[in-house]
């Protein structure tokens, strides 16, 4: 009987929606009783449902989550029936480098200051692109760092540390 | 002889360190988003303290979780006098019982320095409610159990708990309608969709004066200078009713006494200065009678006790 996936995009989109929908339902209402009894403890607590009259915090998310799962199922079934586009290839390189560069910035800012964090972001994100010329990236990061310090720290007075923690007397404050 | 000198020096060291304080900028954590009354008073005080202490006092906004995040941050900071926090009735007296697990202890983890502001709340009703004073309101509420709605700025806010206290003391049942902030609640009240609310006097005053809502009583023991003709709930028959919204400055628990004393003196001086006094007055605050750190600490302990009881009886919960 093999069911052929006629629309790859819709198939996985449907699955994604079902997953999200169920996620919200389960975390709103909590794990069902039989599962708790099996495991001995209550895995997920969930919130109060209340009634339609006096809705508790779980009511709206459960309804929406359920609706989302149903829509996901419709999209899924549709993907087996209707022709649709295939999923374009995933390119992991830009995704990973851009993500890492933002995280690097965020987690380096406090300990090492704006200068180091910005340079890290620029270099890592540039590395995720097509061309990477050291000198060019270095110049760009220098310009950006100077500009950012002027605009954000001096101009807008954002409380970002400019120098790393271990340097005690930062010339720029 | 050398030993004696060394001992004397060792004994004097903490005092010496305190004399040197402040040697660098002080961080004043504001556990709320910028722009609210607590944030504004923090900025006013910081500006004044900078002049008298000779070091920058930098407000640092850390909003979240009803103020708990900011207070917890300071409670766990080094007690060297360089980290302070704006602590309020919510974070010190109400949240401990509202939240099931608070990461800090308001009595033991913090040293309370000065009470900055004490603002009365006022009981206001919608214009189309047939109650012109507190007695009529109580009678109305008793005759229509569960039919009246009272609004508040959020679950567990002073407005909410004032309402709960009122219900408890009068034996009435009214439905609590929470809002995101007291302004939308005020809007619904002006439109007559909710019947009453307890709001902070400064915010409610313009609408009271313009006749858009009717004020019945204040929640403090003594009458407010802003509305001297308005009776207090205590006078109106709810004996002992005394609720204010308040906030002040606190430091980590083990902050040295000399630092606390100096801070307290300087903050009080700032609050007594004419321009700051006027600005705080504009926010609805009459200068608090509680001045010293010890008085403040005793006040906090008393408030904590009152509100723990009240929150439990009202069944309000944050998580």
């Amino acid at each position, binding site marked *: 009987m093999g069911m052929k996936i006629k629309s790859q995009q819709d198939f996985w989109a449907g699955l994604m929606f079902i997953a999200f929908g169920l996620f919200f339902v389960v975390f709103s209402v909590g794990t069902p009783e039989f599962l708790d009894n099996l495991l001995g403890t209550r895995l997920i607590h969930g919130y109060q449902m209340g009634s339609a009259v006096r809705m508790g915090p779980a009511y709206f*998310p459960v309804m929406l989550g359920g609706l989302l799962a149903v829509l996901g199922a419709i999209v899924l079934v549709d993907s087996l029936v209707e022709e649709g586009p295939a999923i374009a290839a995933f390119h992991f390189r830009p995704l990973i480098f*851009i993500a890492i560069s933002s995280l690097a910035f*965020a987690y380096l800012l406090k300990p090492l200051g704006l200068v180091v964090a910005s340079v890290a972001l620029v270099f890592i994100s540039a590395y995720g692109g097509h061309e990477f010329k050291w000198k060019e990236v270095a110049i760009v990061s220098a310009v950006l760092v100077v500009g950012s310090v002027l605009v954000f720290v001096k101009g807008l007075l954002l*409380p970002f540390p400019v120098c790393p923690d271990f340097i005690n007397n930062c010339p720029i404050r | 002889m050398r030993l004696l000198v060394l001992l004397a020096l060792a004994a004097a060291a903490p005092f010496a360190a305190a004399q040197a304080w402040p040697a660098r900028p002080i961080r004043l954590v504001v556990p709320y988003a*910028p722009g609210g009354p607590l944030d504004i008073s923090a900025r006013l005080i910081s500006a004044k303290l900078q002049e008298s202490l000779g070091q920058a006092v930098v407000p640092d906004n850390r909003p979240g979780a009803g103020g708990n995040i900011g207070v917890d941050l300071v409670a766990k900071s080094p007690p060297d006098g360089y980290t302070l926090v704006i602590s309020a009735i919510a974070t010190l007296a109400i949240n401990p019982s509202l939240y099931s697990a608070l990461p800090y202890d308001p009595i033991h983890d913090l040293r309370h320095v000065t009470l900055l502001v004490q603002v009365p709340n006022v009981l206001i009703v919608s214009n189309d409610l047939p109650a012109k004073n507190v007695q009529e309101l109580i009678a109305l509420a008793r005759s229509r159990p569960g039919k009246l709605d009272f609004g508040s700025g959020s679950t567990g806010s002073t407005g909410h708990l004032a309402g709960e206290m009122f219900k408890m003391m009068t034996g009435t049942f009214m439905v609590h309608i929470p809002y995101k902030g007291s302004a939308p609640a005020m809007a619904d009240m002006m439109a007559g969709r909710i019947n009453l609310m307890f709001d902070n006097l400064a915010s409610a005053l313009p609408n009271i004066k313009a006749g858009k809502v009717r004020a019945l009583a204040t929640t403090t023991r003594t009458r407010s200078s802003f509305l001297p003709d308005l009776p207090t709930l205590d006078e109106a028959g709810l004996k002992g009713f005394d609720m204010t919204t308040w906030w002040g400055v606190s430091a980590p628990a083990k902050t040295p006494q000399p630092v606390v004393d100096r801070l307290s003196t300087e903050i009080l001086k700032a609050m007594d200065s004419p321009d700051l006094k006027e600005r705080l007055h504009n926010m609805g605050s009459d200068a608090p009678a509680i001045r010293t750190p010890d008085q403040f600490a005793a006040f906090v302990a008393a408030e904590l006790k009152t509100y723990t009881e009240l929150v439990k009886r009202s069944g309000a919960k944050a998580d």
Partner: protein
Amino acid sequence: MDGIWHNLGIGFIEVFKLQPVTMWGMTLQHVPFNIIMCLIGVFLGTLIGVLPGIGPVATIAMLLPVTFSLSPIAALIMLAGIYYGAQYGGSTTAILVNIPGESSSVVTCLDGYQMARQGRAGPALATAALGSFFAGCVSTLVVAMFAPPLAEVALKFGPAEYFSLMVLGLVSAVVLAHGSLIKAIAMVILGLLLGLVGTDVNSGVLRFAFGISELADGIGFVTVAMGMFGICEIIANLEQKEQREVFTKSVGRLMPTKEDFRRMIAPVLRGTALGSALGILPGGGALLASFGAYTLEKKISKYSHEFGKGAIEGVAAPESANNAGAQTSFIPLLTLGIPSNAVMALMIGAMMIQGIAPGPQVMTERPQLFWGMIASMWVGNLMLVILNLPLIGIWIKLLTVPYRILYPSILLFMAIGVFSISNQPFDCFLMACFGLLGYVCAKLGCEPAPLILGFILGPLMEENLRRAMLLSRGDPWVFISPSKPISMGFLIAAIALLVIIALPTLRAKREEAFAAEDT
């Protein structure tokens, strides 16, 4: 009507007043101080509007202490200038780099960015500026003439009316998508659910936070917008096999063509009307106006097939709507003392520090303040259009920078902006997560705009639904009861709109079914 001219006269005199100013030890006489504050305000506002992630709220909060030493009118003029200056600036980032500066710029991204990619950034930016200027002028007139009665209308909107309006709004959000209808609805619902993360207003319970204290106040709009629009777009651009320049090198003219002007007149008018009307509603009014205007244009325009690919109406209408909404959102503040959004709440703070209690009597007790502010809105809008039009040339030049240099810069500004929300790394982490989500959704043919609109409206919708039910003591018919004609009207419109939207799809499916039968 005489009163109006008299009042406006008071206002303009106040704005243009010459005052002695003491600065740095010198006293200068005859300085038009209020005008200067207006200029500073709109300039700052444009700057922070252009910078992704940094918004008027943070800036105004930081400037509050500065306002202590200014006169009330000067302080408020400057702060107001920052606010609607940020609207102008936000459109610029939306068009140039597909990042919505403000929530009401989300819709501008859809067509504005496409226009920019086609080398039509100049006309797009000019349309936004001109449309905003027109809308600003008209809506300021509306504020001047109709502030008190409009405020009364705003008061008529209770939770039931808000809920129904938001349902209508969400249905229009679905129209924004140009792909599958069902997937658009699903994205809206996903957005709604994500918006529920955080503290529930009605019960105080913390939902879906999994012990992460940073989530106690929910996920911020800026975080989601930067992630799903900004990061996602950069990654998508980097994915191209060869490095094609994202913006075509043949950058065209700066100004719109005659044809463009002809096409934008009606959308600007409609957008202005819608924005002026919806802006008075506290909480989401301006946002609803901008994408309501977009939806309206898409449905009635004869170029509706171009929407999503660079239709000029898709920029003109929402931009006019959101600027009109920005001006009229001052009405609840100035007449009732009720803030429409976070920025207005800050203004209340600024006023209270100055000893002005915001409320109904401001208009009567301090006419110079009230009318001075209104006059300053005109002046501010004029300054903004004068400021922004020449800037278009600079922005266009900026777009010719090779993308490999451009995108790290954009990314840096985004990261700084997001980090500055609460000075914690967590927000950047969330931004990266939403970037990933956006990337996956794009691969699966799901669009981010409906999600983000659901995200903003979701919590508001739930709050109003539950409050309406609380007030009606559980009567679900309260939304369509005859005693609430406004609510009923919105819900009927929502259903009608849903039918109109679904009709083409249904008809197409029917035709397919018939065609399949015939063969």
